[in-house]
């Protein structure tokens, strides 16, 4: 770009007054901006809080002597839930980006399994832990790249391209496990297992006595960091802003100087990368790579993105919203388990909640469009 200024030079006569306007409205604008972007997330957050309160009340201990905390809100349970959402929370970061770009990726579950296996395989071959982790991440990114190239360059629909990847990646995992036999945690270096196990600076408070036992501290840290970084980047990074334009109107984006094919490809690489990360962490936690890892998680993750405000048409959605979607779904699941709802019913309830949320979103959007 030749000149790096936002306003044309001829604007000099009006610059004074318009910047004065901007100055005056600056504070309000900031607030308005925040509200517009965060309104949907705020709504999700309110629901999360409401659900938490319900389950908190429902799981309060019977005895009068110890009225607080409830089972649901006990520090250990909160930690356990945090550990429980790590895989989905990481996947949701990449998925949101792809969805905002107007596509989706149903291969994340399989990429997760394959990356986990690749990482474990590398470690089994005697490579040091960091290299193994890197190989896992690279495998994920490579699968994402292949998805991206088929969608963006060849022009296959995302559904078909990623469905193909879903089957191929899962198939490779089966082939390996059949050919080479299962992976034992003994084959893996202790430093790898430490990623999944280690507490805060390796400190492992014994038993449930500690206020926070911080098992899997680093997994939680990595998860939250991924979500946070993903959110900030998707919101603010110039390069990722292009994803919103692409999802908003692909042709217009191309005519606005956005290299749509490249942006599309990169969105898939990012999902692949997040799937790889989730796969590596999963393998680290369980010391193995299994065939079932991440099976069926893709639709779950897409649903959580939508619950969090992403639109499958593209152009809308935030990582934070999707993360709240993950939190919401998992709060409901855990809460239902802890209030003793039989597992069979949970599918019904979570499924109904999904449709309910999307209906709600559509209704609100209609109302707003009418306005």
């Amino acid at each position, binding site marked *: 770009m030749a000149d790096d200024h936002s306003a044309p030079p001829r604007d000099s006569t009006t610059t004074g007054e318009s910047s004065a306007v901007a100055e005056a409205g600056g504070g309000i604008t900031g607030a308005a901006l925040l509200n517009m972007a965060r309104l949907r997330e705020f709504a999700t957050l309110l*629901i999360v809080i409401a*659900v938490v309160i*319900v*389950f908190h009340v*429902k*799981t*309060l201990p*019977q005895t009068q002597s110890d009225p607080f905390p409830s*089972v649901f809100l006990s520090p*250990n*349970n909160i*930690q*356990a*839930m945090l*550990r*429980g959402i790590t895989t989905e929370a990481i996947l949701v970061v990449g998925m949101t980006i792809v969805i905002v770009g107007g596509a989706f990726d149903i291969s994340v579950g399989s990429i997760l399994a394959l990356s986990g296996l690749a990482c474990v395989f590398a470690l089994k071959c005697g490579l040091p832990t960091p290299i193994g982790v890197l190989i896992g991440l690279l495998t994920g990114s490579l699968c994402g790249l292949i998805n991206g190239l088929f969608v963006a360059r060849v022009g296959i629909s995302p559904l078909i391209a990623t469905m193909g990847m879903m089957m191929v990646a*899962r*198939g490779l995992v*089966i082939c390996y*496990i*059949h050919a080479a*036999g*299962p992976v*034992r945690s*003994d084959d893996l270096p202790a430093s790898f297992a430490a990623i999944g196990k280690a507490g805060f600076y390796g400190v492992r408070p014994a*038993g*449930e006595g*500690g206020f926070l*036992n911080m098992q*899997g501290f680093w997994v939680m840290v990595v998860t939250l960091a991924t979500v946070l970084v993903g959110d900030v980047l998707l919101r603010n990074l110039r390069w990722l802003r292009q994803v919103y334009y692409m999802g908003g109107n692909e042709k217009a984006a191309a005519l606005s100087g956005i290299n749509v094919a490249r942006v599309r490809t990169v969105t898939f690489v990012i999902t692949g990368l997040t799937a790889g990360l989730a796969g590596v962490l*999963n393998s680290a*936690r*369980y*010391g*193995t790579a*299994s*065939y*079932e*890892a991440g*099976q*069926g998680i893709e639709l779950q993750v897409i649903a959580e993105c939508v619950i969090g405000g992403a639109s499958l048409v593209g152009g809308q959605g935030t990582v934070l919203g999707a993360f709240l979607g993950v939190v919401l779904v998992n709060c409901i*699941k*855990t*809460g*239902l*388990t*802890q*209030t*003793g*709802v*039989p*597992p*069979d019913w949970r599918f019904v*309830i979570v499924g*109904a909640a999904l449709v*309910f*949320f999307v209906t709600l979103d559509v*209704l*609100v959007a209609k*109302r707003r469009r009418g306005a």
Partner: protein
Amino acid sequence: MFRNMTRPSMLGPWMLLLGTLILSSGCKKPGDLPAGPDAATGAKTTATTGATAVEKKFKVAISTRPGQWNLDERVRGYKETFEKEYPEIEVVAEIDDETKYEVGTREASAVLEKFQDLAGFAGINAASGPGVAKAVENAGRSGKVVVVAMDADSPVLDAIEAGTIQASVAQRQYYMTYLGVKYLYGLKHKLLRAPDDQSADSRLPAIAAEVDTGTVEVTKENVVVFRTPSQGAKEDIKKTHPEWVRLLSDRKVVGDTSNEEYVVIGISTGVEYWNATREGLKDVCAELGVKPRFTGPEDQNPEKQAEELDNVIARKPAGILIAPGNPETLKPYIDRAIEEGINVICIDTDSPKSRRLAYVGTSNYQAGVMGAHIMAKALGAKRAGERADDASGADSSGSL
């Protein structure tokens, strides 16, 4: 911002909240619920408690994938054994782990937090154990919660070595295939006859209609044996079942059989469980000088398995061993194979209503029963009407 809450568009969240309230209030107080999909089981539980009024000392939870036929059988075995024989044990929760470690961990964590005094956790499928063990470890309650797993996949063995799983109930897939293929070979070459086959030469030895290959308790002591794909069965079989090894060893040569194909059709074949099956198939086919073939859908999909069976029938193999994912779904297909003159024997899971010639395998129900006994022993629970020290008798590995 809060003004929004009263707008009609914000009705949705409140409706959801209301819905959640109603649903969860339908479940009375927390802790009240033994939680089972089967209402009848629940009713039975209360009946038993009412009758004996024994103090429920041990709270136990179950991790399974509801709706999968063989798993439901095992759960039934667990529950009925606890009910009949161990009145002190109470099943307080049942979770769906979706046969995935991470889901199992998440769900088990929820249960562990809810029941701080949980004494045991039973894993019903191969993924349940490691998932639950992880949750127990995370909660810092290793050693306080007894985990009994199923099968002998490496993660299960790893956890047994690490001490996070106390024991596992392993099946003898190697035995099933070994004996199954021998039966099929014998039937094919008229060296053996089917149990109720009147037309065959009555002087021929008949095969057993049902063979229980039994289950083995995997503990820290014997875990090493299970590290090989044949799960130690290859070495073990001569000791435990010398009659199986002798079977057909003196057979007369009936011409070239190297083109005969013996097919095993598994289900969820992506999992490690089938490695021992493959090993057994390979060994027995090498012994008999025939061709082995292993197939089956990678996922838990009985319909796909039925299609697979159809394809196999078209190949006209010498015999088929099948582990039906759902006995009802597979029944007509098995019957069709028999009509086509192909011998079919069920392994792993039986399809009793079909015309299969025999069943060689573990009773899933019995696996559950065995798990229950192991659990009770580890917990130190008293048998109904018996003294505390008599709660063993779990090892049924020798039974035929």
